[in-house]
């Protein structure tokens, strides 16, 4: 029994209940509990608690910042912050740590976050170097060199429904004697320790005009928007499928589109400077959740005019927050999809490369 409170009003809380409480603490506090005594160290290291914490984990943010002053050799740094509701529409961002002090190598110029799953973050450097990191456990590893020596269009990171963590590379090469490109897919499965070439796919996964964002992981699948189409990679069968986008063909020309995860479902967010639409995939079909026109009806939308939708993150009380980013003006705007209000994130204007949602965990992918 663990007693909470002053001696006069002690309420014993049994261990299972204490674990429920500890699972909902910020990561630093959980680590402090691990250091309290042997019993708690063992209880918190136990797979039962790791699973509990994984599902109860508080959402936080990873903010990729570019430092204009690169004297210290690190042009980019990653700041991990806790997102805490302050008042009604305000969030306070509590600094947890800066990750460049841990893994300087990872943050070399051009490294991008591929994705994060169950507390693990996957990074890719254009030269084909992939890295897995769990900042809570200080566990990390470089993946072996990919087999395909081709340009990479995009990559993705996810876990299949049977618990296999996989990294996907979509590569391309210009054909020498004919127009067009050869697309080849490569997959790395954690535990297998080498990349596996999946060969070509029947789909023309090439985008010449725009950079392709990393895949978005939801429920055993990784999704990409490539050339205005949505491609679904099933992590179990390791195959691609083209799925319909919510918009009619032709309509999606001038839109900024991004995929995200809203309450555990794949969602499509599009923004064209005056109209915001959020669609969510429910039972195989798209449902329009939000459609807002700017102008007189919603004058506050003009806050977003120069911004692009960046990602969806989890707020407090099960809300979803859409992050908009204006790289040029160094502006970040947060919009809550549930309360339909703009939120004050008190992020100082900085040179942000990206902002991603992140759920820390104590999941160990291998013994270290």
């Amino acid at each position, binding site marked *: 029994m*663990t*007693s*909470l*409170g002053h001696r006069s*009003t002690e*309420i014993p*809380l*049994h261990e*299972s*209940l204490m674990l*429920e*409480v*500890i*699972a*909902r*603490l*910020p990561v*630093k*506090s959980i*680590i*402090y*509990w*691990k*250091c*309290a*005594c*042997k019993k*708690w*160290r063992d209880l918190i290291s136990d797979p039962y608690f790791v699973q509990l914490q994984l599902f*109860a984990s508080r959402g936080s943010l990873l903010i990729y910042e570019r430092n204009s002053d690169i004297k210290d050799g690190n042009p980019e740094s990653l700041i991990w912050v806790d997102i805490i509701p302050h008042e009604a529409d305000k969030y306070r961002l509590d*600094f*947890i*740590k*800066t990750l460049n*002090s*841990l893994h300087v190598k990872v943050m070399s110029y051009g490294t991008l976050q591929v994705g994060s799953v169950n507390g693990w973050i996957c990074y890719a450097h254009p030269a084909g170097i992939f890295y897995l990191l769990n*900042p809570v456990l*200080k566990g990390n590893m470089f993946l072996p060199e990919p087999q395909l020596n081709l340009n990479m269009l995009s990559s993705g990171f996810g876990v299949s429904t049977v618990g296999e963590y996989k990294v996907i590379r979509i590569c391309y090469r210009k054909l020498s004697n004919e127009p067009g490109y050869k697309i080849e897919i490569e997959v790395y499965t954690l535990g297998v320790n080498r990349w596996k070439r999946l060969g070509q796919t029947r789909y023309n996964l090439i985008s010449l005009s725009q950079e392709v964002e990393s895949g978005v992981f939801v429920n055993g699948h990784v999704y990409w928007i490539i050339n205005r189409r949505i491609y679904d990679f099933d992590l179990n069968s390791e195959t691609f499928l083209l799925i319909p986008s919510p918009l009619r063909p032709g309509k999606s020309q001038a839109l900024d589109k991004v995929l995200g995860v809203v309450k555990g479902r794949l969602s499509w967010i599009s923004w064209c400077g005056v109209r915001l639409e959020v669609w969510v995939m429910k039972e195989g079909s798209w449902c329009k959740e939000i459609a807002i026109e700017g102008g007189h009806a919603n004058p506050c939308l003009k806050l977003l005019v120069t911004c692009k939708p960046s990602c969806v993150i989890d707020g407090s*009380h099960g809300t979803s927050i859409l992050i908009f980013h204006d790289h040029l003006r160094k502006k970040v705007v947060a919009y809550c999809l549930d309360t339909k209000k703009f939120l004050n994130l008190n992020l100082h204007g900085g040179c942000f490369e990206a902002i991603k949602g992140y759920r820390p965990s104590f999941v160990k992918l291998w013994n270290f």
Partner: protein
Amino acid sequence: MTSSKTIVLRSSDGATFEVDEAVALHSLMIKHRIETGGADSTTIDVPEVTGNTLSKVIEYCKKHVEAPNSDDLKSFDTDFVKVDQAVLCHLAKASYYMNIKGLLDLSSKTIADMFKGKTVEQIRETFHIKNDFTPEEEEELRKENSWNLFV
């Protein structure tokens, strides 16, 4: 008006509460009791929970079953846990025992928020935990968690 079945819940100190079956089923423990208890299980004993706490638990279940989509559900939840520490702990225990996920989540989160800023020493002091690590084990832990010190 549809007639709905009611269930009587009896607390550890003998207090009884008549509730709609739908409300009672919000507790997975009660749901299981009803499903396995046979046709005449209209009175369910809840010996781990006192009358005061049970009454509050029922209030929570009623709100979440009868008006799950109401706009003020979030403010209801926020106000619901603005109680003193003792009541909060009793609610957490009851929600755990009665298997009411939403209330367990709400009460655990609230208790967590109450002491989340504590250091190791403060945790030991508040919860009367004895440090039983050897100096070597402490050093091991310190190394393992040295990233804490960077903040």
